[in-house]
């Protein structure tokens, strides 16, 4: 490979004035009359009326008009391509800009920051001579389509950002999020992503020092692949991207340009050409880490020899972005000969060259006299370098210069570069708190049943450490090189990665990235702060002082007001948090449109915090330290533990529950804690320090024990004694806590230091190097081997044991007999049961005696066979509060204590439920009669503890509580006013003043309160009034609770039907006729209720009765009945005269007394309506 000997560059005059059109164009003669197949500036000026496919390129009408206004003509094909990508959300931050400003506005003053937001990456000074730069970025969508290359090029992209700042990249981290761990598609995506991150990073010679692997069904169709890179530079080597100095040469260095990643732009082509578009189909971006390695070395050599004036990496938007940004930031113009760009495919056209996102390229601005030296360096490293243009002067009036791009002597682009970079659209998009949030927050995990005895607690510990999010991630991290460059002081599974920067002085940095989508879902403001607090704490536990922040904000569609609200709140939280902690956000990345269909991912702000260690030799690690003999360290818990279980890993793993408000975050406390840890580390008070977060104290204890095989003995503090309080002590996820071990003799000094810093501490036990177990006094004792087996087995079982000698003939027999009992319900899944007798596919490996450490892997082979039958609904699992309701229909597998993978894949996916602590005991003869119509799934059996309720069935979890919802195949939402009559489309909407505005936007009429009816606006919540008002096609029906339930229910992806006393029978028939109500297609029925003015729920008896009438109408359906359903039915059965009861109940009387007796009469006309209002895309209309 040599420097590109470009004939054009050698002799620009040699370019034929009338180049021969590529042969391909001959195949499509009639499709274009464009001269030479290229749309030139003069041609654009002459054909203003020509239609352009701007909408297909994602530009709005007004955006297109604006381009025409800027140019004073229509854009050429190339210009249109450039504007469409530069003004895309990805490049222009048009939806996020207005919010991201806060990072600058609220940033605390910092004398360390050398470059901040707006640059390729933030740069912070860590000593007089040295600075570091770091940034985290997303590559989510490509990684879902092509996991290996998507992840690989994600790493490549962020590394070039770091390189462009003048830094040598020295480490990477990878926060990854996937769908459910046991989902078959996760088995496709995760191994590919991990191999891609490893493949690129390893080949580049960058140690991978940490990251995250998180599983949650919300990421099923949209995994999050974020990558962080850290670089180091001498302070005076900081590079700029400005293309200053007219006459300077613009050099493109690195890989050749191909048709990669020009998806959007290919539309342009296909709008013009009807044939041959296949051959233009953009290929997936393919990373070439070797080329990037050469590029890095070449660039660093150029920096050190001071050969470049400006430099910019080519990432998203490729050459377009690099050319315009370098010119715009310097205010200069640029003249580019596009045909000089070395191409992988010679037939590429100008707009394709400009939009290509081929990897491993950099754009340099070089003084002419240094060009030869630059080309020589490139040649030394074997990378292409080609002079493609030159910097031109600003206009004579001082205004910025223009970007002129020619292609084979045709002017194809003539734009002011700043118009692409800075004048893009900025949107203050509408925001609205998601309708289901109140509901979600009210559904607190603190009310869930907790383990109350030592045996259950022991079992919970084992179950939790084996759960996918908490288990050992070695399967992943072993695929990354953490040693290369020889400066890795700490790497995963430590809380932070620590890199030595200066070998001479020991100066180093600590880095951690954290995020918790569940917390942010429950409260994006607090969730962002919690992520920040966790990353900050993770850095602090190593003894480092946090100094800077980077973030990757992963959200759904900004066009969804709910998502936009989440985004705004998260940004506000992060900006406030950084201000409070006194550390600035130095840069980051926003990733929108992370959703599958209408379902957005949990808002997931991922926060990276960087800290400085004056001497990395002082760093503190997370594992308990082995000591000779019986010597031990004392264990202190720093911070305060509260009953905070909402959004916790426990609530999710054990109850599949997400609700309530996330733990309280106190950043002042985090700051005190960080100060304490840094001081304590410096004077050697700490043997180990480990952050408490997901999984609480129990998780941290287990991890610290297993790190070096050192056991511990723990005493539960007095205030956590009794019933379920030891559980709270071990599993609460209160923030601001750290587990430290303190060597003997240091206790007094350490606790005094705690006092000085104002950090609460508690002595909770001692390490015990000889015990070989984790013991919680009075509760349980678990051997380290048992802990390790549970902790390490999960990922190999899910993604394939990577032990080379794992399967031998006898081992297969083990597989069958060792299958966790009840992991599959044989009665329900006969094909699965028979499948389990089939031996697992064998690998062609040499037979060899397996060592004992291989055993765990053999015992739980990856049960691929369970997926042999196509699943009907791979995605669309209920989310949010409705997840809670499934227990009624769940077939929960029996678990063997200690077996780490607990949920059967199929059952868990279908019914992520929990068992209920109640039994069916009909009290009255009438109720009994009513219930007899239903098959009884299980006999009541108090001895077995929680009774599992049987297949099918429907109902509410707890009468009168908001958490009601359905978890089955259909959700019936009972409301007194099911819309949909008269062919009307009814939009449920939260109660409030925004209803009218919303109605105007969607072209509907908003119903008002009963008493607000006017002659001009006769539409109200009163059915009577509504029946008299003119018929409208679209009605917005505000309601305090019904809209929230509708929104939450529809988010499950299940059909949602509105029912009331009037149409209950029809709904029942409709459901039965469609096969709902069976084991495979259970039904959830929700009684809506009202809200009191303070927002709390006002359960209403009429809604209960309405729900029960639907159940009544379903009698004879084959499924069973939940306790809630049975109770509701029993209530209905106990009322002799339903209309009379409704007239006599409080809300009935209120209405009658308020002059709305007619409404009540309409409501009680039982069975008079046949309308089935079905919710589709947020609107009820007749089925």
């Amino acid at each position, binding site marked *: 490979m040599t420097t590109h000997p470009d004939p054009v560059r050698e002799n620009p005059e040699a370019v034929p004035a009338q180049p021969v059109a590529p042969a391909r164009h001959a195949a499509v003669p009639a499709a274009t009359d464009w001269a030479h197949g290229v749309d030139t500036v003069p041609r654009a000026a002459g054909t203003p009326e020509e239609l352009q496919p701007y909408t297909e390129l994602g530009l709005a009408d007004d955006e297109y008009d604006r381009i025409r206004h800027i140019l004073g003509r229509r854009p050429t094909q190339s210009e249109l391509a450039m504007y469409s990508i530069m003004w895309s959300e990805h490049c222009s931050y048009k939806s996020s800009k207005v919010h991201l400003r806060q990072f600058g506005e609220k940033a605390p003053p910092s004398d360390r920051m050398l470059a901040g937001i707006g640059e390729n990456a933030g740069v912070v000074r860590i000593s007089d001579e040295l600075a570091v730069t770091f940034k985290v970025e997303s590559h989510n969508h490509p990684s879902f389509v092509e996991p290996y290359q998507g992840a690989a090029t994600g790493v490549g992209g962020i590394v070039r950002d770091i390189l462009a700042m003048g830094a040598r990249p020295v480490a990477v981290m990878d926060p990854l999020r996937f769908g459910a761990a046991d989902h078959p598609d996760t088995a496709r995506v995760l191994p590919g992503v991990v*191999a891609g991150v*490893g*493949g690129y990073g*390893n*080949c*580049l*010679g960058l140690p991978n020092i940490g990251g995250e692997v998180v599983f949650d069904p919300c990421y099923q169709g949209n995994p999050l692949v974020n990558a962080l890179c850290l670089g180091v530079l001498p302070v005076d080597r900081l590079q700029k991207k400005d293309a200053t100095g007219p006459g300077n040469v613009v050099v493109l260095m690195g890989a050749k340009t191909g048709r990669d990643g020009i998806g959007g732009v290919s539309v342009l082509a296909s709008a013009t050409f009807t044939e041959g578009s296949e051959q233009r189909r953009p290929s997936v971006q393919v990373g*070439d*880490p*070797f*080329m990037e*390695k*050469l590029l890095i070395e070449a660039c660093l050599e150029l920096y050190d020899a001071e050969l470049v004036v400006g430099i910019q990496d080519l990432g998203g938007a490729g050459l377009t972005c690099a050319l315009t940004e370098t010119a715009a930031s310097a205010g200069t113009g640029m003249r580019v000969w596009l045909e000089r760009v070395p191409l992988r495919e010679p037939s590429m056209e100008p707009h394709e060259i400009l939009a290509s996102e081929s990897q491993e390229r950099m754009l340099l601005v070089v003084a002419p006299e240094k060009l030869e030296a630059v080309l020589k360096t490139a040649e030394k*490293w*074997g990378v292409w370098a080609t002079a493609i243009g030159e910097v031109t002067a600003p206009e004579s009036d001082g205004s910025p210069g223009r970007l002129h791009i020619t292609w084979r002597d045709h002017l194809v682009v003539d734009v002011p570069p700043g118009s692409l970079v800075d004048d893009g659209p900025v949107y203050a998009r509408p925001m609205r708190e998601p309708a289901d949030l109140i509901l979600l927050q009210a559904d607190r995990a603190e009310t869930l049943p907790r383990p109350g005895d030592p045996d259950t607690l022991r079992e919970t510990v084992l179950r939790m450490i084996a759960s996918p999010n908490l288990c050992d991630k070695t399967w992943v*991290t*072993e*695929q*990354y*090189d*953490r*040693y*290369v*460059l*020889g*400066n*890795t*002081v700490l790497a995963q599974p430590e809380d932070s990665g620590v890199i*030595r920067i200066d*070998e001479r002085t020991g100066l180093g940095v600590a880095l951690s990235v954290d995020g918790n989508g569940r917390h942010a879902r429950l409260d994006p403001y607090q969730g962002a702060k919690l992520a920040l607090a966790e990353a900050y704490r993770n850095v602090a536990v190593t003894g480092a002082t946090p100094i800077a922040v980077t973030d990757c904000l992963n959200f759904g569609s900004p066009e969804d007001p709910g998502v936009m609200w989440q985004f705004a709140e998260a940004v506000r939280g992060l900006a406030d948090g950084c201000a409070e902690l006194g550390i600035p956000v130095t840069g980051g990345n926003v990733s929108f449109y992370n959703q599958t269909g209408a379902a957005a991912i949990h808002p997931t702000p991922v926060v990276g915090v960087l800290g400085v260690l004056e001497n*990395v*030799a002082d760093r503190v690690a997370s594992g308990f330290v082995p000591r000779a003999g019986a010597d031990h360290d004392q264990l202190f818990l720093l911070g305060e533990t509260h009953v905070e279980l909402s959004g916790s890993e426990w609530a999710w793993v054990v109850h599949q529950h997400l609700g309530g408000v996330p733990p309280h975050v106190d950043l002042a406390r985090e700051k005190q804690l960080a100060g304490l840890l840094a001081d304590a580390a410096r004077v050697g008070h700490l043997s180990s320090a480990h952050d408490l977060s997901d999984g609480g104290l129990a998780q941290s204890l287990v991890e610290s024990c297993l790190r070096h095989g050192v056991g511990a003995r723990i005493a539960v503090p007095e205030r956590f004694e009794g019933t379920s309080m030891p559980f709270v002590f071990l599993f609460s996820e209160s923030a601001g806590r750290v587990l430290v071990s303190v060597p003997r003799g240091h206790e007094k000094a350490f606790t005094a230091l705690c006092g000085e810093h104002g950090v609460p501490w508690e002595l909770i036990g001692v390490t015990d190097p000889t015990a070989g177990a984790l013991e919680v006094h009075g509760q349980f004792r678990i051997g380290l081997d048992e802990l390790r087996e549970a902790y390490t087995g999960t990922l190999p079982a899910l993604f394939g044991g*990577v*032990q*080379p*000698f794992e399967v031998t003939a006898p081992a297969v027999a083990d597989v069958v007999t060792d299958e966790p009992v009840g992991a599959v319900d044989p009665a329900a899944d006969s094909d699965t049961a028979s499948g389990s007798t089939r031996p697992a596919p064998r690998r062609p*490996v040499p037979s060899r005696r397996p*060592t004992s*450490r*291989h055993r765990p892997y053999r015992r739980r082979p990856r049960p691929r066979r369970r997926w042999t039958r196509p699943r009907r609904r791979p995605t669309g699992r209920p989310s949010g509060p409705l997840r809670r309701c499934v227990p009624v229909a769940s077939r929960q597998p029996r678990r063997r204590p200690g077996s780490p993978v607990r949920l059967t894949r199929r059952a868990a996916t279908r019914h992520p439920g929990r068992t209920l602590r109640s039994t069916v005991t009909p009290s009255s003869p009438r109720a009994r009669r009513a219930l007899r119509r239903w098959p009884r799934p299980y006999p009541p059996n108090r001895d077995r503890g929680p009774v599992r309720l049987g297949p099918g069935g429907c109902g509410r979890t707890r009468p009168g509580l908001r958490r009601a919802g359905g978890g089955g195949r259909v959700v019936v939402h009972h409301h007194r006013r099911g819309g949909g009559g008269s062919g009307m489309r009814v939009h449920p909407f939260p109660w409030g003043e925004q209803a009218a505005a919303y109605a105007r936007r969607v072209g509907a009429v908003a119903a008002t309160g009963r008493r607000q009816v006017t002659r001009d606006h006769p539409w109200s919540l009163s059915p009577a009034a509504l029946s008299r008002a003119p018929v409208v096609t679209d009605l917005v029906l505000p309601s305090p609770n019904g809209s929230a339930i509708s929104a939450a229910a529809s988010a499950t992806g299940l059909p949602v039907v509105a029912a009331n006393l009037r149409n209950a029978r029809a709904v029942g028939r409709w459901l039965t006729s469609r096969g709902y109500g069976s084991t495979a297609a259970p039904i959830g029925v929700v009684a809506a209720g009202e809200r009191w003015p303070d927002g709390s729920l006002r359960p209403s008896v009429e809604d209960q009765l309405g729900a029960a009438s639907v159940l009544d109408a379903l009698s004879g359906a084959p499924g069973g009945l939940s306790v809630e359903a049975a109770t509701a039915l029993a209530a209905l059965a106990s009322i002799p005269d339903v209309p009379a009861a409704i007239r006599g109940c409080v809300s009935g009387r209120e209405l009658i007394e308020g002059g709305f007796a007619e409404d009540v009469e309409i409501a009680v006309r039982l069975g008079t309506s046949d309308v089935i209002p079905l919710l589709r895309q947020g609107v009820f209309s007749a089925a």
Partner: protein
Amino acid sequence: MTARVGVVTFPGSLDDGDAARAVRIAGAEPVRLWHGEAELHGVDAVVLPGGFSYGDYLRCGAIARFAPVMEKIIDAAGGGLPVLGICNGFQILCEAHLLPGALTRNQHLHFRNRDQILRIEATGTAWTNTFQPGQEVLIPVKNGEGCYVADPATLDQLEAEGRVVARYVGGNPNGSQRDIAAITNQAGNVVGIMPHPEHAVEALTGPSLDGLGFFTSVLKHLVGAPA
């Protein structure tokens, strides 16, 4: 005069800096050698470091073996120059036929990085003479193509001649035949090792200091060797 140990940088070499650091810590002077120069600058020994030379897109080491500097190294190795090939360097030595056999894709098909126990079995080589026979050492292993293979006759010959320098203990990380982690040539001056001794030379960054022995061995060898 301190010994001068050359460390070659190929395009795509990654652990060259670490190898140089290890040489320095062991007390020798590291000399950086460039793949494109057929010049050894009078070094007393050479380390071929780990990495992905030429991206390893072809067989690992298959291109690097043709680098100009390799001609000199092959010649000098024939004359007794101590040469240590680590990871990619081991692969290059096999491709250059200075050592028999080949390194193939890990049997489990994954890159694997872990701290690995090795048993040193040949202590007569230029690079292992400070170890005790049978001594167990802890050295990081990290490779995607570290599975050593050779035909049975070659393996038998290696065993018979005591040329298996180190074996994996407590689990074979890549499926190497007969757990082979390192081998040597007949003269004992050329050693190829898959794990990375240069990453076990500092307490702060490595799992042990056991890797240092390889570099101090060559110094001992050079002192004892006739000049």
